[in-house]
């Protein structure tokens, strides 16, 4: 079986480090990091073209991103015929009700307040496996 990926879209290096550390504790998936919304969109476009997107197990998405926001990235995923089924988990430090509501509408797997714990990620990944 081919290697599986977890795509982490996160601009802050500390947050990227903390999330990677938790991912490393829970699974052996390869972590691909995008540093802003634009980079994320381009990355996903390439992965859609070469069909590596099929190996994506989870997209971890920060909402507050430079250039293209997390919500826009999410909208892009849902609007794409190829990528629309990707499991996305939102990572945020803000307690914004409106953001939460929008993300629910855009069918996210989970909405996690930072810092993410290993238990939480484990729960998400097991649910992903069950589905």
């Amino acid at each position, binding site marked *: 079986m081919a290697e599986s990926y977890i795509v982490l879209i996160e601009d802050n290096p500390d947050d990227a480090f*903390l999330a990677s550390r938790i991912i490393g504790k829970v699974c052996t998936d390869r972590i691909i990091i995008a540093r802003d919304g634009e980079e994320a969109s381009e990355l996903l476009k390439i992965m859609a073209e070469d069909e590596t997107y099929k190996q994506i197990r989870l997209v971890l998405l920060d909402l*507050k991103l430079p250039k293209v926001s997390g919500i826009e990235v999410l909208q892009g995923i849902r609007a794409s015929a190829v990528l629309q089924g990707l499991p996305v988990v939102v990572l945020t430090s803000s307690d914004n009700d409106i953001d939460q509501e929008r993300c629910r509408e855009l069918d996210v797997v989970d909405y996690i307040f*930072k810092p993410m714990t290993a238990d939480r990620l484990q729960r998400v990944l097991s649910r992903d496996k069950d589905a």
Partner: protein
Amino acid sequence: MGPLPYDISGIALLYIEDESEARSMVSKMLAMNYPKLKLYEAENGAVGLELYREHLPEMVMTDINMPVMDGISMSRAIKAINPEASIIAVTAHSDTSYLLNAIEIGIHHYILKPINYQELFSITDKILEQIVLKRLLAEQNRRLVESERQLAGAQRIAHLGSWQLDLPVGSMKWSDELYRIFGIEPGSIPPAYQAFLEKFVPDDRKAVEKAIEDAERSRQPAAAQFCDILRPDGSLRTLQVEVDVILTGAGVPATIIGTSHDVTDLKQAEEKVHILTEELERRVVQRTSLLQASVKELETFSYFVSHDLRAPVARLEGLCRALLEDCGSCGNDGCKVYAERAERVVRQIKQIIDAFNNLSHFATCKLVIEDVDLSAVVRGIASGLQQTEPGREVDFVIARDRMVMGDPRLLHIAMEHLIGNAWKFTSKTAKARIEFGCSELPGTSVYFVRDNGAGFNMKYIDKLFKPFQTIHSPGEYNWNGTAIGLATVHSIILRHGGRIWAEGETGQGATFYFTLEENPEPGKLYGSRVKGEDDL
């Protein structure tokens, strides 16, 4: 003879006759016939004159030939005092010299001796009637003068001039006040129609003319609004001209009557009010925008706290956890302890951020104003507290049916803090008692929450309602670490247009008083901002 058809009370008659028998006989007859007539008697002219001076009777009836002073001399003296006195001469003389004297003096009535009573009464009746009529006339005249005086006074006070225009001849009458309004001495110029029109400035003259013509043609009242006149001193005055028409019996317009009201001062006052109102509105706008600016600043700051500050705090929390998880085995015990303490600090920061956000939310959110039964709210909170700590015995005294207008959610939060504080600070009190009540003061209801718990030192009163300030040490009374309870209450009460203050004494309990605006405004200070719009 029957009673007189008019009232003669107050009229007096002086009768002078030297023959006492005749005098008493005539007096008796007069008294019988005129019971209301006041009668004075004298035996000669000198005594008669004395009595006249004393009483000034309206009528005098006198014999002519008398000792000491005769009737003619006395009558002359009386006429000198009062030329209007009515004098009847009673005489046996048909002597023309007497009569001529009498006429010259002004005696116009004669009765010949021996007196014929019919004749006496007939003459007396006639004189009495004249006196009564004169009195009525004088009274009418007095009233007329009085009401004219009042009218002139009223016109002067009201700056209301009146005029009339006789249509067939075109002659006019102007009231004194109209002259004054025109800025000229009353009666100083003849009140002509042309002169009247020329008082108005050319632009407004037509309006006045038209009002008069309209009234004449339509036979209905007409008016000319705010017409300016030019006074000889060059000042402009603004008049309100009202016109009405008086018709002849045949329904033909006979006279135009009008009023000219000097409304210059009113207009000026109105203008002043207008300017002041505009100024006030300008200031309100200015104040509001200042207020809006500071609220906006607060919101920006609170947005910063809730979003920008949360991210590094979450980062710190993650790093502390990483430290705890990964450095347990490095051999240095200090690492673990420090990491645990650092994580507690992070939790505290998060609590403060939440508290701060709540506080700024209460200060700026839109209120939902409804009828709220504050007594029921307090009862609910009290029973909730009793359920959480069933072991505690607290005597709750809650006033009934205190209905207020306000936001039910916010008022509940405020009461929760006040009752919760009272509950917390009576935890070490033997016979704990918590009271919610209301004192009715003139024009306002003062609500209060009173307890007999720990109380506080009044020297800390200034810190009481400030956020993040506490007057109790950490750990004492389960202090939660943020100390925004009373600041929240303060903010909620302010939002309801009320006031809050407290009284207390260490160890003797505390009382928190507050008022609420009867009809608070729900409004946010500016249009609601969509939370998180900067995220997108």
